[in-house]
């Protein structure tokens, strides 16, 4: 970014407006600052800057920023490091000016070293080309002793430029020329890891098939929020977090709990003792909603489902997508539930 400071640039914002000005500074997580800026292109929504009027300082926020154009820009400085006419003069000037801008230089060079890995000149570029350059190196190290320690590497590939993630793989954003809103979040944006976010992407309709090999329940996200461990308040730990998702039901199963009118669907493992006193496996069995068997032993490993309404029988079970529900209030100690079967109901004590 330092390479374009002081150059005339054009910045386009999301509503299509274009501003021309002198690039002063930028922090692309916050915004871009232009000096002596002028609006040269009108967008959809106008904005608070009239067309053609000059602004001494214009700050364009990052959420409005679309692109920045620098015209006739030379990537590398003209001439090369070994030439004596241009570079020495330049370096002489920089040394002469350094007394005037010394304070600024301390901050600026630190920024060069620490923020812009594309230009590691503060450490390595002026290395072997004469006394003038070695003086600059020495001066830099005095001004900024930490620069060498940091040492953004030249030898290694620039970390920010070696890998470019696939910008377009299969995603085609809708054309939003007319609307000044960006495409949905996450289209191209790479979200940095967040301490409260699990490794899984944030999904609102998180569907996890209930089968024997399911991941530990405590790591499942809930209701679009990312949480690693969610314990319902006041409930014993054997209660697994509520799973807000349609659960797979065996369509061939006799009607068990085909419909529910309650807002919640709780799934509780039979804690330690099953119907027949056998220990209950912790893993969710594949046929959780399967059929409620005619004989009781199938209840082992089939966690009962807590339902408030009486179950309907002889109805083909549709997939029920539960609505949003709070976590804590729904999980309550259940003393006994009625689990319907084809042959009747069995009271289950928990």
């Amino acid at each position, binding site marked *: 970014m330092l390479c*374009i400071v002081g150059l005339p640039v054009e910045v386009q914002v999301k509503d299509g407006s274009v501003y021309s000005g002198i690039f002063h500074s930028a922090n692309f997580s916050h915004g871009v600052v232009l000096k002596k800026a002028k609006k040269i292109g009108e967008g959809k929504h106008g904005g608070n800057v009239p067309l053609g009027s000059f602004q001494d300082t214009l700050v364009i926020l990052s959420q409005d920023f679309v692109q920045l154009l620098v015209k006739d820009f030379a990537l590398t400085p003209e001439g090369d*490091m070994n030439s004596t006419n241009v570079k020495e003069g330049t370096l002489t000037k920089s040394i002469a000016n350094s007394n005037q801008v010394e304070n600024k230089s301390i901050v600026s060079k630190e920024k060069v070293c620490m923020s812009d890995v594309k230009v590691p000149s503060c450490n390595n570029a002026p290395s072997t080309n004469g006394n003038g350059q070695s003086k600059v190196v020495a001066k830099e190290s005095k001004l900024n002793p930490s620069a060498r320690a940091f040492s953004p590497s030249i030898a290694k590939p620039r970390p920010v430029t070696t890998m470019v993630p696939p910008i377009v793989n299969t995603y085609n954003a809708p054309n939003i020329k007319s609307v000044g809103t960006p495409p949905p979040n996450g289209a191209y944006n790479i979200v940095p890891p967040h301490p409260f976010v699990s490794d899984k992407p944030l999904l609102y309709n998180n569907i996890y098939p209930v089968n024997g090999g399911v991941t530990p329940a405590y790591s499942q996200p809930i209701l679009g929020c990312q949480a690693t461990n969610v314990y319902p308040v006041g409930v014993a730990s054997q209660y697994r977090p509520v799973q807000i998702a349609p659960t797979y039901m065996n369509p061939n199963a006799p009607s068990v709990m085909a419909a529910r009118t309650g807002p919640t669907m709780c799934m509780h493992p039979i804690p330690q003792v099953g119907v027949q006193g056998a220990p209950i496996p912790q893993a969710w069995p594949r046929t959780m909603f399967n059929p409620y068997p005619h004989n009781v032993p199938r209840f082992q490993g089939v966690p009962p489902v807590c339902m408030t309404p009486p179950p309907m029988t002889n109805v083909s079970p549709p997939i029920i997508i539960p609505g949003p529900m709070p976590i804590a209030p729904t999980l309550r100690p259940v003393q006994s539930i009625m689990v319907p079967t084809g042959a009747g109901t069995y009271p289950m004590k928990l």
Partner: protein
Amino acid sequence: MAAAGGEELAVGCIVALRTTLGDDVQGQIIAFDRLSNLLVIQEGAAANANANAVPTRRNLRLIKANYINHFSLLAKGDDPLHLHNCFIDLGLIHARENAALRQAHLDAERIGVGVTAEAQSIFDALSKTLPVRWENTDILVMNDIRVCSPYLPDNVSGGAPAANERVKKVLDSERKRLQARGPGQL
């Protein structure tokens, strides 16, 4: 350039893309910043691979990847940046910015506020040969002679007679020249 499965873009790739605002861009990728989701592209033909070649001047674009609508990879190329040639002269940068600000201030002074495009064209034409400046909506020539709206030779007043006549002649010739270019120029 490493690709981890699929097709990943890296520095040096020649790409063509279209932004959501309708701009078509074709150029070589210089850099990509993940944190800010910014793609840096140098427009135009691929840079000369020779590190000692005279650097060409081309447009540089910093595009937020969120606003890329369509994207296609045209070719792969080498990293256009030669790091051993890169350096920053902070003094030069400061001087460049100061000079740019001074020039921008002068350019801003040349723009009339509340004047017509015709008036601005006349001002620009007069400024080529005479020292002029705006004073509200009047054109002040040599700090002495005033040209008022509608900026005809009859609207020239002040100053010495010789200078006044000279300004009238220059104004008349510039207006004729502007008219000769086309009605749209006035």
